[in-house]
């Protein structure tokens, strides 16, 4: 996989979540994503950015335009040094929440992306990577 463009942003506040949505939207438009695919990746980004703020105590996101075997896509990597997730499998379930939300953040983001991976270590932090191809 080749990285064509990359930029990093901090994810600390509710305003950052909005700014990330806009940055992801812009990148999706540049890459020629159709409206539905733009909406899906932006929505997934919004869920994960909120998780980073609420559960991870803030962190950063790397927004990348990537290319693999001639297809182009967006890869988003959200990282924090928060408390980590003790049971990732449980956290991935629809409706599981510790934050008082709907519990759709992680599971929803996975459904809205093509590739999804999560690594989390208790006491060290969490990294979630998603890719959506054009």
């Amino acid at each position, binding site marked *: 996989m080749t990285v064509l463009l990359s930029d990093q942003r901090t994810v600390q506040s509710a305003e950052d979540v909005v700014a990330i949505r806009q940055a992801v939207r812009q990148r999706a438009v540049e890459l020629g994503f159709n409206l539905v695919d733009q909406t*899906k990746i932006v929505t997934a980004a919004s*869920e994960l950015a909120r998780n980073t703020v609420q559960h991870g105590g803030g962190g950063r996101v790397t927004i990348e335009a990537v290319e693999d075997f001639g297809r182009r896509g967006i890869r988003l990597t959200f990282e924090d040094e928060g408390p980590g997730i003790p049971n990732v499998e449980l956290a991935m379930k629809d409706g599981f929440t510790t934050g008082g939300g709907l519990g759709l953040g992680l599971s929803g983001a996975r*459904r809205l992306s093509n590739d999804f991976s999560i690594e989390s270590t208790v006491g060290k932090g969490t990294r979630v990577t998603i890719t959506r191809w054009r």
Partner: protein
Amino acid sequence: MERIPILKMGEYLLVTIQVDMHDRLAMTLQDDLTARIVEARAKGVLIDISALEIVDSFIGRMLADIAAMSRVLDAETVVVGMRPAVAITLVELGLSLTGVRTALNVERGMDLLRERIRERFSE
């Protein structure tokens, strides 16, 4: 502080969300709207989301909560103008907006509100 305006039209309240809302702004709208329903003795609330480019789980929950709270306060809520791409994404995200009445546009939303309110008074 930044706020989403709430317009009063007779016994209805009209909210048009035209900005990309951050979470606190969404919570403020929820609080303002419930207060206005009581103050204005509103029978119906119409929320126009045609300008919203996404509805994520937070905004989805806000809409569902507003619908539930207004019901408790004896008012009907109709959400109008959802974009097709938003609807597709919302369902894939896992949100079905249970309990939220929707209509395609403001005109149909107003018709639905009037109809619902008429039904209630004839009961």
